[in-house]
């Protein structure tokens, strides 16, 4: 245990004394065996734009699964609904609530105006540990390619869930066919000619050559340009080392999806691909932005035509009912994804036993742009660190406390993230 962590514990002990209920240290100090477990831990963050409400009417293990969460029934034992959290960094007196809601969700920070500029998101931080031995560090997927800029903020704040830090959003894939290639290897002309082995061997030589090229360039260019080269060298070196990793599981490649499919098909395909990537051990971390914030996506395929964003600003009962139906559809898709993990056995249990799959959004009430009562639930037990089958209410606590709790449940020691004030007890 590092000195830094001990300091963190002391601070939290003080907080507890001050009346705040935090029990995170339990994980760090008393469950070292769980941390050292041999099975991979996986985490997936899914984000739903334009807000939603799903606080169950009762807390504890007897909580009811009401609209729009009813489709979680098949995995209820693994579900933890967390209510009462607020996303403080998304709050501001200036316009741009959608941009801040999305960007603060995984960064825990208020994005700079007009941007792009925000800190590294939690998925990237966790991938450094969880995907250290994986062929792909993380998958970053988005259901839509375009987003409109809001109130002077960069459009990147409405279209990117995952950030590498600074001005750099994590490049996102928007085409299931491209994601398929990323997971299973590009379907190339070389493959068709049976030359995959030649190509892979050449790939290694090419990476060696460009590393030499970049290193020598480093000596002749100006200091101000070197950070780009550093970034380049880092990516190429990382690719080189990950290329040699062969997934331990045998992966059924299936069929490469068609490009340009309709939204509802795209969402299903993305979940399907994330499942395969996790099951095959290609990666242990994924983020999935279901649609850009302020999206105009029409849900006419479930009988709700019109712009999702426009509908979210209909503060009549009818408007909220429509939003609940859209949310319920997404919960249904997410639940189907969870059920596939549950149906996949893994050393005496199933994949859900070792995963944390988060679903949520940065707006508790889209019509009023509220960042209180953040809608969020997680599915999975992370090796037993999370009990599951509960509705826990942490009224008024920072949403980032959940990130800290999840990170520690996944075995990544973390004392602070974003505006967190501690962790949350998920046991």
């Amino acid at each position, binding site marked *: 245990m590092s000195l830094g962590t001990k300091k963190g514990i002391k601070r939290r002990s003080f907080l507890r004394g001050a009346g705040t209920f935090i029990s995170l240290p339990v994980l760090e100090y008393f469950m070292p065996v769980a941390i050292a477990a041999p099975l991979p831990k996986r985490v997936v963050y899914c984000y739903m734009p334009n807000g939603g409400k799903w606080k169950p009417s009762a807390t504890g293990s007897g909580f009811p699964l009401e609209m729009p969460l009813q489709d979680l029934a098949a995995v209820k034992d693994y579900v933890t609904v967390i209510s009462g959290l607020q996303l403080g960094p998304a709050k501001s007196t200036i316009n741009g609530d959608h941009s801040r809601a999305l960007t603060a969700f995984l960064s825990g920070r208020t994005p700079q105006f007009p941007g792009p500029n925000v800190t590294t998101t939690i998925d990237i931080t966790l991938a450094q540990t969880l995907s250290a031995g994986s062929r792909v560090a993380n998958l970053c997927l988005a259901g839509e390619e375009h987003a409109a800029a809001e109130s002077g903020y960069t459009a990147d704040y409405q279209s990117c869930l995952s950030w590498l830090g600074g001005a750099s959003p994590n490049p996102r894939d928007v085409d299931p066919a491209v994601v398929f290639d990323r997971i299973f290897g590009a379907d190339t002309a070389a493959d068709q000619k049976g030359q995959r082995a030649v190509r892979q061997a050449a790939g290694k030589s090419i990476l060696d050559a460009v590393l030499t090229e970049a290193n020598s360039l480093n000596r002749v260019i100006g200091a101000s340009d070197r950070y780009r080269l550093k970034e380049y060298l880092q990516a190429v070196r990382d690719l080189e080392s990950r290329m040699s990793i062969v997934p331990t599981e045998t992966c059924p490649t299936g069929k490469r999806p068609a490009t340009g499919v309709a939204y509802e098909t795209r969402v299903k395909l993305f979940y399907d691909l994330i499942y395969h990537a996790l099951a095959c051990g290609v990666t242990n971390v994924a983020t999935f932005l279901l649609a850009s914030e302020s999206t105009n996506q029409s849900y006419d395929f479930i009988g709700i035509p*019109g712009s999702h964003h426009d509908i979210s600003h209909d503060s009549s009962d009818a408007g909220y009912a429509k939003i609940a139906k859209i949310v319920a559809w997404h919960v249904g898709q997410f639940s189907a994804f969870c059920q596939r993990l549950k149906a996949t056995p893994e050393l005496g249990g199933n994949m859900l036993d070792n995963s944390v799959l988060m679903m949520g959004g940065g707006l508790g009430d889209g019509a009023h742009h509220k960042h209180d009562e953040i809608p969020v639930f997680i599915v999975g037990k992370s090796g037993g660190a999370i009990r599951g089958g509960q509705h826990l209410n942490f009224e008024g606590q920072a949403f980032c406390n959940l990130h800290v709790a999840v990170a520690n449940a996944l075995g990544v020691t973390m004392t602070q993230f974003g505006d967190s004030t501690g962790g949350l007890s998920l046991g």
Partner: protein
Amino acid sequence: MLQNFSFYPRTLLILPLVFAGVSGCNALPFLRFGHHRSHANAPQVDPINTVPIDTDGSCGKIATDRTALAIRPLSNFEYDLTIKELLSTTSSPSNSFPPDATGTGFDTGAAHTLTTGLAQSYLDASQTLAEAYVDRQGVVCSDQGFAATCTGDALASFAERAFRRPLLAEEATRLRGLPLQFASDGLGGKDAYSASIASVLLAPQFLYRSKLSSTAGIANSDQYALASKLSYALWASMPDDQLLNLARDGRLRDRDVLASEINRMIVSPKSEGFLRNFTSQWLGTNGLAQAPAASHLDADLVTSFSEETFAYVNDFLRQNLNMRNLLDARFTYVNAQLIKHYGLLVNSSESLSRVELSGTQRGGLLTQGAFLMQTSNPDGTSPVKRGKWVLDRILCAAPPPAPAGMQTVLAPTNGKAVPMRQRLAAHRATTACASCHKSMDPIGLAFENYDMAGKWRDNDDYGAIDASGTLPSGEAFADAAALAQVLKVDPGFPICLATKLAKYGLGREPNKQEQCLINKIAARAEDESYGLKNMLVDLSRALLAN
């Protein structure tokens, strides 16, 4: 002469106010009226004007561009065009890359970071492209085919083009030896050459521009950087031999040479690359297929809308037409599908071709399907969205979003026939809404004669459409055509377009001195004879060579 325009100080107020996220529109001074200068007073515009923009030096010296964005990877669009040029291919490899970020508004300013995943995408593309290129090439050495002992020179000259500059001595030595090195890794002659080509395509000197392509150890290295800066701004692709030769001779910064090169580049058909990329982002045609109303329309029609708008704007550049006429020119580009859709009585042509619109209910950008459809809801028009779009994209004066908690869905009509105009009037009864809607609504209502798909209609469900309105400034208009006459003389329009063009070319927000130059250039559009080409030439002369 240019200093006489009294609207400068007021114009400069627009952007900071909007960007600071003010919650109302009362402070926005948009919709001012300039005076349309008559032809008689118009100065002759020299096609290759070399007179400095800032004749009196009042803008000051432009601060050196030291931003991090000075070096950045090629955008996806630039990557594809560069590959097309370099490898003489038609493929678009970036279809399998993650989409570019938008940064400050255009993909040219996005600082996307090279991640492991992106490096994988580039590696896959490099290998696929190199394999096809080598296959097409047949042989490199006449007597030995692809023997690694003889392909080194071909690789070095390929790399020189790919890097957009001469090779450093050590680069040349290393690259010449690459095929042999790969052969010793166990690759056959052809595979070794193909892998060498792929290495060049994955090298930082190829993937990044522009500082990395100018290094110490090369004579006139800053001139090569300028050649790339110009070509990526105006062609979205790599510099050609003429630019590179001028850089080699150290002549590219000569005022006359620079002006003439900029002119040549803009006149060249290659500038379509830039214009297509710019227009699709400026007018939102890149996201047309994702617009709410698009799901109810034929996908080909949606593509045709976008092609129409590009071809129309392209004509302004090719014919050097004044940009203010973008709002009311009586011509457009249509194919058979659009002719039928718009109900035009012209000879049908399968491919996109220019038609005159005199005597029709159309004329100008705002009567084209791309605008009318992208601002509609799946179940009908949205005057509010249309008004907002015009303020945002044409005048750079986007109104802020509705205050939180406001009921922004129009009150239900309970089966009664209530005209759109009457339903929208409720906005103006609430102070919080009125400040913005008194601008947005009349502009949007002017286009009610065009339905959600851009078709003309005299009546909606409630009877004859009244498209007339009055702007906050008191200016009244009878219909969309009359509104276009008001908008086209708003000085905010040329400043808005010139600023957007500058942002695209610079890949960042202009600084204070640059904005001053942009405003001076925008003011020249008061003269009818000052065309879009003149504007682009002047912006490039003033901003790109610094």
